[in-house]
């Protein structure tokens, strides 16, 4: 009898030997691109005002005088009354096909619409209307990694664009950290180029301008609006804010992604490094130096003599680079790397010294104390992992609270960072976006 029991006891062991297979699954969320075309007439006639709409694919954020402008990628701009950050109210939606960037000077809002720059009068929120349009100034650009292009020659009216969708894929792996290989390759270069728009710190000669994030391609300074596209910078004269005129183009190397004006300098984030331009003559910015990396390079923010640059994978030129670079720019002619810190997938960033906020894309938001540039990784104050963060704007003290604006794929968040180790959520405008699998 006992022997039979022993034999029975061995059956689970046999089963174990058969069932001992590791089960590992890799889940990835990636962008998928589909070519689409449209005509310039469609784009130009698509401009209009409609009632407030929910966020679906939020892009960059821009704020001025308690009002908030959230770009809806390629669709338009949400206008939000944010005078009480704990309960923002959506007021209206401006339909602008092909919009990605925003800048506001006095009561005029500038927005790109594929190839055009459109100006809106926003003095009366109930009656926002188009007042001017500079046609055919932008030839190409990208939204969330998808490229668009337009050739105005020969009365061409067709704009080529790519629709971007997010897909989720799960695949069994060998449990050994080797990334599963896609079976097909897309040939499009991609970069998340469209999270938040940054703007200018001050306009000494101009009127009052708003504030944007670190991912912006538009910047207002003095009487000029600077708009960077992939290989150049367009200058628009906004001395008459209602009537911007195209001024000139400054050629640059390829892969320009963001612009950050600081004092009388322009810091430009590109895929190959950080470019510093002297802007003491705002009509003609002059290149001072380049901090090269030969890699993907993303937004730049500057405080005092220190520039913070995030680099993120997402290009064919570097397999894996996700880091924060701290760069000493006390000598603008020769910027020096102080230290690099590994990050997960950094996007926009914001500095309100000594607080440094870094968006980690789908992996959340990090709050650092950057007072010691050599120990930033050891001074992580808080890591909020359950948000999707693409860009931030630390607003500093606003009515007794320190307000941090943050936009991500899952919503627009406002935090009080009076205690940078315990960010307090003030409000959230959620995103309602379908997920594809």
């Amino acid at each position, binding site marked *: 009898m006992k022997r039979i029991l022993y034999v029975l006891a061995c059956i689970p*062991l046999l089963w174990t030997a058969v069932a001992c297979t*590791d089960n590992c699954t890799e889940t990835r969320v990636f962008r998928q691109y589909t070519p689409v075309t449209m005509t310039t007439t469609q784009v130009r006639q698509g401009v209009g005002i409609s009632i407030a709409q929910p966020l679906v694919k939020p892009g960059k954020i821009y704020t001025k005088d308690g009002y908030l402008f959230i770009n809806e990628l390629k669709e338009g701009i949400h206008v939000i009354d944010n005078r009480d950050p704990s309960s923002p109210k959506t007021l209206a939606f401006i339909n602008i096909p092909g919009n990605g960037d925003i800048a506001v000077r006095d009561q005029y809002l500038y927005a790109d619409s594929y190839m055009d720059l459109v100006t809106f009068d926003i003095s009366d929120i109930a009656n926002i209307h188009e007042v001017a349009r500079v046609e055919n100034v932008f030839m190409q650009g990208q939204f969330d990694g998808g490229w668009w292009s337009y050739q105005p020659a020969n009365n061409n009216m067709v704009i080529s664009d790519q629709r971007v969708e997010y897909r989720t894929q799960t695949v069994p792996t060998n449990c050994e950290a080797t990334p599963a290989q896609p079976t097909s390759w897309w040939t499009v270069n991609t970069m998340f180029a469209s999270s938040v728009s940054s703007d200018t710190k001050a306009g000494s000669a101009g009127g009052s301008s708003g504030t944007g994030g670190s991912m912006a391609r538009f910047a207002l300074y003095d009487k000029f609006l600077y708009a960077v596209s992939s290989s150049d910078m367009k200058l628009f004269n906004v001395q008459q804010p209602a009537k911007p005129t195209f001024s000139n183009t400054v050629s640059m190397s390829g892969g320009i992604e963001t612009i950050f004006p600081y004092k009388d300098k322009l810091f430009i984030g590109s895929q190959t490094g950080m470019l510093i331009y002297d802007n003491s003559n705002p009509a003609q910015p002059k290149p001072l130096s380049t901090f090269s990396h030969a890699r993907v390079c993303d937004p730049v923010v500057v405080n005092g003599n220190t520039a913070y640059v995030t680099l993120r994978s997402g290009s064919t030129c570097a397999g894996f680079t996700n880091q924060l670079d701290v760069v000493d720019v006390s000598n603008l002619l020769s910027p020096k790397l102080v230290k690099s810190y590994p990050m997960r997938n950094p996007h926009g960033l914001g500095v309100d010294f000594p607080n440094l906020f870094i968006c980690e894309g*789908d992996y959340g938001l990090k709050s650092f104390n950057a007072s010691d540039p050599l120990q930033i990784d050891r001074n992580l104050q808080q890591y909020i992992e359950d948000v999707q963060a693409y860009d931030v704007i630390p607003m500093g003290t606003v009515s007794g609270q320190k307000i941090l604006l943050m936009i991500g794929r899952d919503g627009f968040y406002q935090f009080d960072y009076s205690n940078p180790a315990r960010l307090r959520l003030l409000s959230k405008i959620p995103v309602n976006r379908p997920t594809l699998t």
Partner: protein
Amino acid sequence: MALIRTIGCLLAMLAGSVPALWAQLPVVERLEQAHPFVNYTELGGLFGRVAYPSGFGSPTEQVENKVSLTIQTFNGVQLRPRLAVGGVVGVDWYANALLLPVGAGLRYDLTRVEQNGVNLFVSADVGYGLTWLNRASTGNELTKGGLMLNPGLGLRFGKPGKGAFLLSLSYKRQTVDANKPLGWNDIRRDEHRVYNRLAVRLGLSF
């Protein structure tokens, strides 16, 4: 991080030796006579395999055999003549994951304790695999440890109250989550691992 690892090591060593230290105290001596202290220390291999497609959406399957080193120590008390309960601490060297499982376990003799000979026993351990000892290449960090289950059977060769040799076979299940480097158009990439292994161990018991 280095500090956490050091503390982890120390804790693991302490957890392993606390019952032994207790046993030295006179207060516990009487208790110990009623419920003697038991230690099972084993070393062995975790055997398994893995099957996976050669790429996303590929119908071609690849199969590999896997073996990892495992060390573990069980420290407990002989609650009943046949039953011992206690804590388990170990170290498992999986490929790209060095885990520190800690948990609770029991050893139950299926056969009557005999003066001379071989005893068959059942073991059952439940715990959590900590990632404190792991170091990963950038982008491949372990984000979370996970549940550890380890039921099995063993043979103990030796006289009661004296040292004995152990040979055990068990099933070990361990979950862990890891980062994956992001590809050029990825916005998220993570790996969830479930190790299902046959553990074959040799050891000593007293």
